[in-house]
């Protein structure tokens, strides 16, 4: 019997891509995708279930579908996209409900993969150049995203401890970059003038969007329990990143940076969330050797990931942003999946 997988955050970039990759795997029998919004990419056999943001129906779904694998990609790490209250609901309450469902009696869950972020390490002047998976952060988190991620990781740890028979993998992703993904950093790098802080040239680490998907599939395939940093090799100074993108920097004053940035933020000129100010000052590097030692091979280094992003930006600069080719239509999807009129290849037998 093959895997029965539940993917949270199917409507997000990550959830969608992971589901797409899983569909190609004959070893996966069932894929159930959960999200508040409809999927944005075309899926063949994934069953989409709309839920509210804190997954209150999760318990019923886990019981009804008897899933053995949960891929939790729905954590919000971009605080510009949602308010802090919703962030708490999605990240903390959502994860709590997820693990409550997964640890309910009779649950068949054996594998859990959680997509977290290197934001959990924070950033400050006391930091080492490289964080390993065990390095504690230098200060307690102050921004809502970092606080919520810390709570989420607490739930993950508790769950892993209480359920030793379940393989729990927690992946901490560095700054994700790529042609398709939208994060505060990629949006800043798409601006004609990119914000920076005067007198500071921090070193940044990036991970390519494909490496993110591949690493999730890798830990799933190879049963790798534990915490792993996922980041490309090498660190790049922010000035170099901006140069590679062919943009210019706007230096903001080192004192009262956020005060100056506030009106620019209100005007919507750029939106740098609070947790990125430290990054623009001190940068952050994470040690990616643990995942490499487990056998994972990265497609991109930090530098080549930025280069891939730049190529994507050049293309969209020439041909414009591509229109989304796919729109989810419930009736159409239901027809293809369940109508007796559709001739389906039998793959499971």
């Amino acid at each position, binding site marked *: 019997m093959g895997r029965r997988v539940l993917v949270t955050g199917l409507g997000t970039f990550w959830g969608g891509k992971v589901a797409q990759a899983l569909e190609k795997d004959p070893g996966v029998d069932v894929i159930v995708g959960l999200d508040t919004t409809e999927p944005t990419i075309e899926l063949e056999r994934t069953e989409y279930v709309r839920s509210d943001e804190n997954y209150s129906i999760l318990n019923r779904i886990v019981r009804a579908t008897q899933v053995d694998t949960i891929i939790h990609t729905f954590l919000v790490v971009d605080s510009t996209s949602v308010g802090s209250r919703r962030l708490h609901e999605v990240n903390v309450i959502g994860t709590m409900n997820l693990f409550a469902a997964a640890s309910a009696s009779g649950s068949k869950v054996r594998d859990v993969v959680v997509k977290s972020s290197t934001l959990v390490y924070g950033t400050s002047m006391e930091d080492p*150049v490289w964080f390993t998976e065990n390095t504690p952060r230098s200060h307690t988190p102050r921004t809502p995203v970092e606080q919520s991620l810390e709570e989420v990781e607490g739930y993950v740890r508790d769950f892993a401890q209480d359920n030793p028979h379940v393989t729990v993998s927690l992946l901490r992703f560095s700054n994700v970059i790529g042609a398709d993904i939208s994060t505060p950093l990629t949006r800043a790098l798409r601006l004609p003038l990119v914000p920076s802080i005067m007198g500071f040239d921090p*070193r940044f680490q990036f991970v390519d969007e494909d490496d993110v998907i591949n690493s999730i599939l890798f830990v799933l395939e*190879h049963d790798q329990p534990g915490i792993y940093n996922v980041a490309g090799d090498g660190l*790049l100074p922010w000035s170099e990143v901006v140069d590679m993108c062919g943009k210019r920097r706007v230096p903001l004053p080192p004192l009262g940076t956020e005060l100056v940035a506030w009106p620019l933020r209100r005007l919507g000129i750029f939106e740098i969330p609070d947790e990125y100010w430290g990054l623009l000052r*001190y940068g952050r590097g994470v040690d990616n050797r643990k995942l490499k030692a487990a056998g994972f091979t990265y*497609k991109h280094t930090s530098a*080549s990931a930025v280069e891939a992003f730049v190529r994507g930006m050049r293309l969209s600069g020439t041909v414009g942003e591509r229109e989304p080719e796919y729109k989810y239509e419930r009736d159409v999807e239901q027809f293809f999946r369940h109508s007796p009129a559709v001739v389906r290849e039998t793959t499971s037998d």
Partner: protein
Amino acid sequence: MAAPEEAPVPEDRPPDTDTAEAVDLRLHQPEDHGALVHVAAPPQPSDPRLSDVDEWGRSEHMREIARKAYDPVYRHWFRVEWEGMENIPRSGGALLVANHAGAIPSDAPAIMHGIEKELGRPVYGLADNLFKSIPLIGTMWARVGGVAGHPDNAYRLLREQRQLVLVFPEGAKGPGKTWNERYRLRRFGRGGFVEIAMRAGVPVVPIAFVGAEESMPIVFRLQTLAKVFGLPYAPVTANVLALGPAGALTYFPAKFKIRVLEPVEFKDVLPNQERYSRNRVMDESEAIREKIQEALYDMLRERQSIWRG
């Protein structure tokens, strides 16, 4: 693969056990999983990098410029003289430990430049984290060879990259001394440097430095000013009193004499331990401190003139 990028790795490195395991795993990777996990594409033919800033924030290009600018100062202003340079290992990691002095310490660049010039080995100078938070200066310091003084950074440099690391265990208390306390070593922190050397399995090389005290002596300190700006000390230097505002950045041409002492090795302790005996660490730290203090007294006994040596 010790360093996750093109960090200088000496060729005589022992094979890393992690790598061996990693290769092993990859070899035994079942074929049918190949469809899911992308096999790495061949590395990009062209290097996408635009600058030569490495993981520690150094730039060889900037260091070359800094060396050229500093060399005349090193040779003609401070007329630096070395003794016992042969005590610095030609390969492998070592922790260089020196006394620290001068309102704006002039010893770090002299030691780093001298070793790089004579041995051709780069020296990584550990600095207070505070450096990182100063605009421009923090960035420049990193570009020319400074690294934030975090134990993890020191360990990585010493153990994995087998480099020379320079540390001043007195911290800010060394350069913050006033004129009347010159050449009297402060407490060597909590002996953290000994612990790092033990963990990294490298020797400690003590260095006694004469001359930095007189290059920019502190006459008195302004306590309130320091508090307001959150600085470890706010000095009024003899240079400022003598030369006015220009004195803030001008050193007196004191003669620099540097004596490298016998390396201290910790052969009986195992590297990579979680913790080391506090007692042992403090004893070693104190012994090294005394050695440097003795060497300083010895050198001062022989010194006939502050300016001519």
